[in-house]
Structure formats: structure tokens, C-alpha cells
């Protein structure tokens, strides 16, 4: 008979292993957190001094003039992201629903899944060029709409794949419970599957949103940027990442400071919007529910 009971020396080895693994995971957590906190503090250090009311209310001033702000970029980014989300999230979720509830195991489903994965890996600059070639060239001008559509295409694969994965975690027993009550399939998908997977799907949408919110390259070729207040979605529009990009590349110290401030505002806005969505969707949850 081989010895299968743990001996004393084994026990000490196992305890040591336990401590090591715990230490490694704590260390990893720190490694993840440090850059985020460092970036945040550095941005505050560099950019906070340039933040004032004018930053949030004025459009940029020409070189040499002091003052001016990025108000048009904040509004522009919001509009472009709104367009992207309004297009990307519904299409993405619909795609995920198809993959999980209808198309699993079909060749159609396989093609869509493959396409989504490839799309996810396409460099953002390529997406920008594609947006330029497919929309801007045909419209003969840059526009907020073109920017939004391009970003939405970048959101779709992430939303689709997370929606699919999240729907797959919904136990089949819940669908059967609904079928058993004589609930039609479409209603089951909407009210049971999607409803149960909602927290995960929202996380996926937030991930996709946060990712495209900071994208610069696709907007260079589509939204282009502007120094003025936007009047319609059908004209070139300013966006925070674009403005940061332009200011950061400029030779002027004043603009560099504004770029830092813009970065700080961008990150804060992303954090705020993600936090807000989380807060709103977590309200109305029941005791003991998911």
C-alpha cells in the first residue's frame, strides 16, 4: 500500500505552497492596480491645474491666446459615443442572441462567430481607414456620423461575444421553465434569457464602450476634429481623444497642459459613465436574486 495519508512534512509543504500562492495573487493585484493609480495621479498632477470653468464651457482658442477649453470636444465625444452605442450595442446584443439561442451549431453561427473574432483583432487604424473608404469617401466629407458608425463596428464584436457567453451561462432549466408555461420562444429570449444574463451583458457593453471611448485613430479618418461647437451629426466634429492627440503633438507648453487636462477629463468621464450604468442597473435588484 502506498502512503496516501498526508504526513507532517507534507502538511508543512502544503502550507508553504498556500502562502506562496496567496502572496503571488496579492502581488499580481498590486501590479494591476499600480499603473491605473499611477496614471490617474500623474494626470491629476499634470492636468488638474489647467482645469477651470472655461475648460468645460469654451471652445479652443488659437495659438498664442490664453484661455479656451475643450467643451466642444466633450460634447463631440459624447455625441460620437452616443451614436456608436446606439448602433453597436443593439446590433451586438442581437448578434449574441442569435449565436447563443438560435445559431449554435449551424454553419451560419460559426461564420458569424469567426467574423466577430477577426473583427475584434483588426487594428483600430485599419478600422479608421475602412470607415474613411466606406463612408467618408461616399459622403464627400468627414462627419460625426461616420465616426460613430466606425466606433460602433468596433464595439459590435465585443458586445456580441460577451452577450453570447453570458447567455450560455443562463441555465437551460430557466428556458424550459418558461417553455413549460407556454411562453413563446421570442418572449423567453427577451424576458428570461436576456434578463438573467443582463448583468454580464452590461459589463460587456461597458467594456466595449470604454475601449472605443479612448480611440483616436479611427476618428482621425472619420470625425476628423473641429475647433467649433457641433451643429449637426453630418459635419466634422471634435472629440476628446482627437483634441488630446493634436495638442500633445503641438510644440506649445500651454497646449501640452491642456492635453493633460483633456486626458484627465476623458478618463474621469469614462469612469463616471461606467459607474453610473453600474449603479442604475444594480438598483431594483431583489433580495437573494442574481
Amino acid at each position, binding site marked *: 500500500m502506498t502512503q496516501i495519508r498526508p504526513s507532517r512534512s507534507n502538511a508543512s509543504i502544503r502550507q508553504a505552497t498556500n502562502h506562496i500562492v496567496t502572496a503571488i495573487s496579492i502581488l499580481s493585484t498590486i501590479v494591476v492596480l499600480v499603473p491605473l493609480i499611477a496614471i490617474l495621479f500623474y494626470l491629476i498632477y499634470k492636468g488638474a491645474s489647467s482645469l477651470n470653468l472655461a475648460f468645460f464651457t469654451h471652445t479652443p482658442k488659437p495659438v498664442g491666446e490664453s484661455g479656451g477649453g475643450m467643451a466642444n470636444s466633450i460634447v463631440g465625444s459624447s455625441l460620437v459615443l452616443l451614436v456608436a452605442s446606439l448602433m453597436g450595442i443593439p446590433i451586438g446584443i442581437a448578434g449574441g442572441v442569435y449565436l447563443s439561442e438560435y445559431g449554435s451549431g449551424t454553419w451560419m453561427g460559426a461564420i458569424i462567430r469567426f467574423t466577430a473574432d477577426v473583427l475584434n483583432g483588426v487594428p483600430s487604424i485599419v478600422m479608421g481607414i475602412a470607415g474613411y473608404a466606406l463612408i467618408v469617401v461616399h459622403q464627400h466629407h468627414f462627419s460625426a456620423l461616420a465616426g460613430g458608425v466606425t466606433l460602433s463596428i468596433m464595439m459590435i464584436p465585443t458586445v456580441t461575444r460577451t452577450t453570447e457567453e453570458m447567455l450560455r451561462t443562463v441555465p437551460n432549466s*430557466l428556458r424550459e421553465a418558461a417553455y413549460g408555461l407556454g411562453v413563446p420562444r421570442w418572449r423567453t429570449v427577451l424576458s428570461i434569457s436576456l434578463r438573467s444574463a443582463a448583468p454580464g451583458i452590461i459589463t460587456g457593453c461597458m467594456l466595449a464602450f470604454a475601449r472605443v471611448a479612448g480611440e483616436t485613430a479611427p476618428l482621425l479618418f472619420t470625425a476628423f476634429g473641429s475647433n467649433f461647437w457641433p451643429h449637426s451629426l453630418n459635419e466634422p466634429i471634435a472629440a476628446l481623444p482627437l483634441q488630446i492627440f493634436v495638442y500633445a503633438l503641438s510644440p506649445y507648453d500651454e497646449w501640452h497642459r491642456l492635453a493633460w487636462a483633456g486626458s484627465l477629463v476623458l478618463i474621469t468621464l469614462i469612469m463616471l459613465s461606467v459607474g453610473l450604468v453600474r449603479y442604475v442597473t444594480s438598483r431594483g435588484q*431583489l433580495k437573494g436574486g442574481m
Partner: protein
Amino acid sequence: MGVGIEVVDLNAWYGVTHTLKDITLNIPPNSATALIGPSGCGKSTFVRCLNRMHETNPAARATGTVKVGDRDIYRDASPVEIRRRIGMVFQRPNPFPTMSIYDNVASGLKLNGFRNRKVLDEVVERSLKQSALWEEVKDDLKKKSGASLSGGQQQRLCIARALAVDPEVLLMDEPASALDPVSTSKIEDLIFNLKNEYTIVIVTHNMQQAARVAENTGFFLMGQLVEFTSTNVIFTKPKDKRTEDYITGRFG
């Protein structure tokens, strides 16, 4: 009121596997009918054919006639319509975790577009009383999620949910196999009370349970209905040797 179920030459397949072979039987109304047999014998497939749940699996197929009351459910009606008339309770309690206790019970009506608050309130109360859960949950109806209840309570919640759409038949697929003995006996008491109003078909692995709750019992083996007769006959003097071997534990 419950209605009888008449099954003639029912055959079912999963892919190429022939899981039910020429099943013919009559389930009398307003009684409990138990189906027993070893795992994989087809008894679960059989009840899933009774409300066309079987066909929700794309690889599944069924032929034959199933008449519930005077309607042939495979010819005269849509699956969705059939499932409203034939309630189903599953092995593992499966309340909707995102819904309150109230919404769980009302879900069958609400998800089918029924919105009258007053009627919903009445139906929820009646169903919860029928499933003997009302006293335990009446104060938390809209506060607590269905998933916050204990396993036994969850299963009674699922029974209430099935009763709320006012079915004629209640199919139960091993409804107590995941429950402790106290919860199990509550479910069995429910079955005893409910069969005055519904026709109950219960699949069970627990032969004593079949003996306790059912008037008639069917023994399935390898996709065939070996014997179907009064429960007391099955458990005291079964006619078929295979039934005898199974229920006395001389099987396999």
C-alpha cells in the same frame, strides 16, 4: 378539472437513438400516475412528449398520437398552446432568479401578455395557497427573489407557477429528488390534494414515493412500457418478471 391522457403508439428519438418504443397507455383523469424505471429508460422523455417539450431539443423527434382530453396535441394545437394546458415541474427547482416571488408565480400569465393587476393578485394568492406556500411567503411577495427561498420552498413555488396558468394536467419530472425528506413529504401531500383538480403524472426514482402518491404506476425499461397497472398491483404482485426484478432490487 383534470382530463385523461390517451397515448397511442408513441415513438421518440434523440438523433438516431430510439428512446421510446410504441408506448400505448391511458392515464385516467384526476388521479396521480407514477412512472418508474432505471435511468435512461425513457420515462422522462415520455412526460416531455406529453407537453411537446421533447421537441425543444433540435435533435429530438416523436411520432404517434397523444390525446389530452379530446384534443390530439400533435395535430390540433401549437406547442405553446399545449404547454399552457399542461403544466410542468422539473427535477431541480428552477424559479426565475431575476423575479420576485410574486412575479415568478405570475410569470406564466405576465409573459403571455396578461396585465390585469387585480386578477393577477388573486391568481398569485390562489396558486400559492394551492401549493401550501402562501403562509410562508405572503409578507415577502414582492421583496424577495424566488431564488432566496429554500430548495423545498422553491419547488413549491415552481408548482404554484405551473398552477397559475390553470392547467388541466400537471407533469412532474422527479419533483422531489433534490429535496430533503420533510420537503419531499410536503410535495407528496400537495400531490394528494391537487389530484382532485388536476391529472398528475409524476416521474420518480423513488419507488416508495410512487407507491405513496400514485393510483397507477407504469414501469419503463429500455424505452418500452413494460407494465402499467394499479400501483398496489405493481408493488405486491407485478405480472412481468422484469418489473418484479426491478422493484425488488434484483435488477442488473
